[in-house]
């Protein structure tokens, strides 16, 4: 039997407003309202008819507050996926689909907005969600340090070559250099910029870490049937999984030994592939949430694209780029090179890629995996497609 999520909802419109951190021309909520209106215009849909909203990562904009500016007729659904980081990003689409398929809402916007003046530094906000005295006593007060512990275990215990992260970073900047919306647009990336950037928390240097931007992103999700009547070709959701497997979670670094140097996404990926009856070989392009490059590597491993043993054969620059790579990753530049509004640029690029609107088009791409924030206690992923296969 086909899974109820398979091809039954679709993204009909996207909107993205991105600015340099600390440089948003508008307050956070206003920027979000503009992104929602952009998404609705993209779809040819009246913003007043949006009746549901879903976010993740402790977004501060309670949807009810958007109603006056959007002219919302009636709010029928608002929800957020638990977790302070980007782990819930893909799960937000599953929550939205749940509302649509159960008749509780008709048009749901998935969003994330982040303007430093309103929400502060994102890294600090994520950490505030998790901070406890065990971390305070040891000075482990940032996501970078905690992810660094996992990265060192990946490299020094599991034997993954630390140099492979460079290929992921280079591919991201390669794509970003051709994306007019990317912070790295038009810039040639020299790998020495990474190698010589200052050390943050070993093994991470500055360029191993995602940046932070001011911005807002919004995606309009409706039923597949409704999407087919709107302005743009529908981008269908084929599946979505969120959660955590036993032995993974907010465990004071006491995750199961076999899971410690992972993204925590093995069970998510397994469920996603089972429910869509797809395999990693069926994925044409990946939008990979990389808070830190090593966590991106772990996510690719968890999603079945490679293993600890053969990661260096798969995670190669030539293989990761849209121009002929078998595993094109982060075709907008991703969190590293496009910009980072807590990952919301990634599903937007998934939609653009599947519509043929990407700055780095993957010829003939039909499916796109959105791999959510790796290493978070609650994690999630989703698969989108431009036809119901």
């Amino acid at each position, binding site marked *: 039997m086909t899974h109820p999520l398979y091809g039954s909802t679709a993204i009909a419109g996207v909107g993205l407003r991105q600015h340099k951190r600390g440089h948003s021309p508008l307050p956070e909520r206003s920027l979000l309202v503009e992104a929602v209106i952009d998404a609705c215009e993209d779809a040819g849909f009246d913003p007043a008819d949006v009746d549901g909203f879903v976010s993740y990562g402790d977004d501060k904009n309670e949807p009810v507050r958007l109603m006056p500016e959007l002219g919302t007729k009636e709010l029928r659904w608002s929800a957020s996926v638990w977790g302070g980081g980007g782990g819930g990003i893909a799960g937000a689409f599953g929550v939205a689909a749940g509302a649509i398929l159960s008749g509780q809402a008709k048009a749901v916007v998935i969003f994330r907005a982040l303007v430093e003046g309103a929400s502060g530094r994102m890294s600090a906000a994520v950490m505030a969600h998790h901070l406890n*005295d065990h971390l305070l*006593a040891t000075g*482990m*007060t940032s996501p970078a340090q905690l992810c660094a*512990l996992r990265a060192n275990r990946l490299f020094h215990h599991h034997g993954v070559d630390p140099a492979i992260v460079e290929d992921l970073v280079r591919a991201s900047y390669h794509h970003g250099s051709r994306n007019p919306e990317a912070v790295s647009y038009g810039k040639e990336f020299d790998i020495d910029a990474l190698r010589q950037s200052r*050390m*943050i*928390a070993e093994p991470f240097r500055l360029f191993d870490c995602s940046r932070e931007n001011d911005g807002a992103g919004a995606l309009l999700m409706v039923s597949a049937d409704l999407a087919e009547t709107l302005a743009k070709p529908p981008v269908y959701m084929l599946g979505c999984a969120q959660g955590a497997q036993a032995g993974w979670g907010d465990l004071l670094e006491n995750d199961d030994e076999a899971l410690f140097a992972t993204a925590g996404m093995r069970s998510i990926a397994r469920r996603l592939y089972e429910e869509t009856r797809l395999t990693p070989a069926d994925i044409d392009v990946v939008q990979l949430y990389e808070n830190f490059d090593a966590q991106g590597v772990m996510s690719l491993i968890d999603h079945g694209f490679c293993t600890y043993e053969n990661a260096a054969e798969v995670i190669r620059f030539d293989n990761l780029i849209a121009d002929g790579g078998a595993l094109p990753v982060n075709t907008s530049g991703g969190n590293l090179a496009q910009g980072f509004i807590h990952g919301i640029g990634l599903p937007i690029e998934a939609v653009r890629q599947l519509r043929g609107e990407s700055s780095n088009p993957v010829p003939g791409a039909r499916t796109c995996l959105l791999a959510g924030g790796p290493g978070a206690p609650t994690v999630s992923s989703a698969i989108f497609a431009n036809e119901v296969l």
Partner: protein
Amino acid sequence: MSRFDGPDAPYWEALEDGRLMLPRCSACQTWIWPAAHRCGACHADDVQWVEMPLEATVFTWTRTWHRFGLTEDFELPFTTVLAEIAHCGIRLLGNLEDPDRVDPEIGQRLTGTIGSTRTPDGELPVINWSRV
């Protein structure tokens, strides 16, 4: 919530008292961490706190060079280990004495003493590890 209000309050009380105490299920002997009031393995609710020697091995580590907020009491760079406590497998974060900046090796044996970290909300006890 203060650290004396959570399920790991006995851990903090003992550490301030200069001892490492960790919780174990009295019924099935499973070590429980993060601390909890009941055992997820056998569902018994009889948790016993056991004093453990300050002996461990390196599970993983990092060395911090950036001045993150709330690290003001640490001299940069500082090295942190995730220490696997001997005889129980529970992993605890701790400081590693690392004056010569020699990268730790996973599995390396550690011995600990109890120190403290100054935070905006007062002193916190912490385990300082050194390599055997």
